[in-house]
């Protein structure tokens, strides 16, 4: 077969090749197209509406690193109060070790008893 024969064959093939795709395939492709379009529309959704209220809370949350920061602070606060109230044994032992009762500070009366001044008055 000569190169010219081959070019002729290619030309015939190009012409035959341009025939339409089967209708059921076109329908499937178009169904996919619409489905993807609908899905993307749904995912895009309506424009977000600004939430009202809780302005101070949101400001604080922003200052302390968002909701997670606020949650962390609240947990630490609760833990601190609990330790103070319950005074677990290890904490009490540590406190006694650092500040024994003998080393308790003496109280100094900086303001004299007001009652003693009255007779002179």
């Amino acid at each position: 077969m000569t190169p010219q024969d081959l070019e002729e064959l290619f030309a015939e093939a190009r012409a035959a090749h341009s025939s339409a795709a089967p209708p059921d395939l076109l329908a499937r492709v178009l169904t996919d197209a619409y489905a993807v379009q609908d899905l993307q529309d749904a995912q895009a959704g309506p424009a977000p509406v600004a939430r009202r209220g809780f302005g101070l809370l949101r400001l604080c949350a922003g200052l302390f690193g968002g909701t997670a920061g606020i949650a962390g602070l609240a947990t630490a606060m609760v833990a601190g109060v609990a330790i103070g109230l319950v005074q677990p044994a290890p904490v009490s032992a540590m406190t006694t070790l650092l500040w024994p009762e003998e080393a308790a500070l003496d109280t100094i009366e900086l303001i004299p008893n007001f009652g003693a001044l009255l007779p002179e008055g």
Partner: protein
Amino acid sequence: MSMPLDDLAHLPEETLLALYAAGDRSAARVLTLRLTPRILGFAARLLGDRAEAEDVAQEAMLRLWRIAPDWRPGEAQVTTWLYRVVSNLVTDRQRARTRRRADSLEDAAEPVDESLGAYATLLERDRMAALDAALALLPDRQRQAVVLRHLEGLSNPDIATIMEIGVEAVESLTARGKRALAAALAGQRAELGYEDEGVSP
């Protein structure tokens, strides 16, 4: 939101894809009618199996729909991108076929007959069947390059982009592919009606 089909018919694919991403149903119809037959023919030539080619064409178009919102104008041609997707899908299927063939003892015992006699009956039907049969004998990359160049009418730089190789490699593949095709069809020249024409000077 949809524009009349007549208004869209002459728009480039990239514009149509942008309209599709914006929700235009008509753009989807125009793109489907314009692109599906092209990639179906391409896939069918590479795979030699119409049903499988339809699956590939549908999958490639689905990927196009999905990428539409993220399409970056000017970076690639829609058709070139689609041909590339089809090429990759076809390559995956050809590899799967090879694996299945290797796994099958029957197929292993009966290797593919690459002689002209294997498609002699097809050659007798018509030229197109003969061309398809001869194309099927080419190595995958040669077949892909020949189909893209001579049947899809793409330029060598576009083919190089699709196949992810250099332009020189494309030229080499198409030249070798054409020589192999001519050799494969040489013995059937008379049956294909070339006996009185196409004589080289």
